């Protein structure tokens, strides 16, 4: 069973067994505007929860993407490097950023559920 959780930095994480898939939320993609560049973490890199993992740049500005959970990078979505506009087209689907092998499954539980994130965004 998969579970999607959210951070207050507007990342989502989808957990499947001990694998986490991470991307940015639709809200974040809308705030950024047209995405023109994505820098992804290399496979094998170990990242702590809240650590800088990727960079996403729109026409106007650069933003860091933080890893919601700690683990080792097992893959990244190279299609985004070639076509960064996918981030605007399908941020919570096809345009995932990277995958991690989870170091601590308990970390996921601390993140916001979809309903909590929705409330959080409403308050912004």
């Amino acid at each position, binding site marked *: 069973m998969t579970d999607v959780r959210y951070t207050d930095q507007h990342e989502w994480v989808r957990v499947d067994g001990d694998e986490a898939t991470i991307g940015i939320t639709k809200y974040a993609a809308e705030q950024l*505007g*047209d995405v*023109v*560049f994505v*820098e992804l973490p290399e496979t094998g890199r170990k990242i702590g929860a809240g650590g800088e993992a990727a*960079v996403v*740049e*729109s*026409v*106007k*500005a*650069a933003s860091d993407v933080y890893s919601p959970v700690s683990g080792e990078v097992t893959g990244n979505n190279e299609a985004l*490097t070639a076509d*960064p506009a996918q981030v605007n087209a399908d941020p919570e689907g096809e345009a995932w950023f990277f995958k991690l092998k989870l170091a601590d499954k308990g970390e996921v539980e601390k993140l916001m559920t979809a309903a909590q994130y929705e409330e959080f965004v409403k308050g912004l």
Partner: protein
Amino acid sequence: MADPTEVLLQTPLHALHVELGAKMVPFSGYDMPVQYPSGILKEHLHTREKAGLFDVSHMGQAFLSGADPAKALERLTPADVAGLKPGLQRYGLLLNDAGTIKDDFMFSRLIGEDALYLVVNAGTKDGDFAYIAEKLDGIAVLERRPDRALLALQGPAAGAVLERHSHGIDKLTFMKVVRCLVAGAPAIVSRSGYTGEDGFEISIEAIHAERVARALLGEPEVLPIGLGARDSLRLEAGLCLYGHDIDETTDPAEANLVWSIAKRRKMDKDFPAAEKIMDRVFNGTERRRVGIRPDGRAPAREGTEIADKSGKIVGKITSGGFGPTLNAPVAMGYVDSALATDGTELDLIVRGKPLPAKVVPMPFVPHRYRRAL
């Protein structure tokens, strides 16, 4: 961060921007549209392909009158103001006493009128106008015109579009200016702009602004364009943004704006710090403004350090981002003059990593002004 207690001014088109779904941001003390729902990329490309309408009413408009306003203004700028023929507009630098750049501005001599019409930058207008009024006190009289709005219609379709609302306007060529009617409203129209495209700047009384803007937006070729695309368009056009590429720490020589110093003025050396500036024009400056193309796709933003191939820091990016027309990053900045030649290989220090880049000629996208035949 924007100061939440700051009371932002609004242009006469504010309600229209909100109605059109613009994302509004604080800019130079005004609540301005940074983009509309179509987004910066589409707005940028649409302006290059058809036509875009920009609200630039936040900029400062004024008339300078007196016995000889041209001669008076020449005390503050190295441009040829006295030689400006009626019906023409020109670009000028406003210099402080030290010869560095207080602002850049446009000035026009309208046909049959003695006063000069000035347009200065939004963020600097209060300081500029106070400076001009103080320096020219007793010689010329400055009349600010906050009652006027300013629209820019830019892009290859601009001429055909504006012709429908101002008969005969398409005959105007680049840097010419005329008083005429636009959609029935009395206007000052110049064929100029800040995108590198053919286009017009249209000054009208604020009370007519919304009606004229709606008339132009009603044309199938025209989309509203926000400040985001205005910035990416002017960057591709290689044009300076005041407060970024030029400011009171830069002089005309290092900013590569010597072309705006008229020949007569160079000989007469009668503008602020003329001796010093001409010495720098002839003997060179330590640094120069150049165009830079990063390899790869990562944009280098303002403030990015520039290194030579040995790793020594040799300058800084002053404007940088993504050029939608080129589908690639573009930047401009200052480098040691020895490296300011086209083709020089450099590194841009982006997030701590050196990214290879080259010095290239500007504009990055060719200008398409409607010059006289």
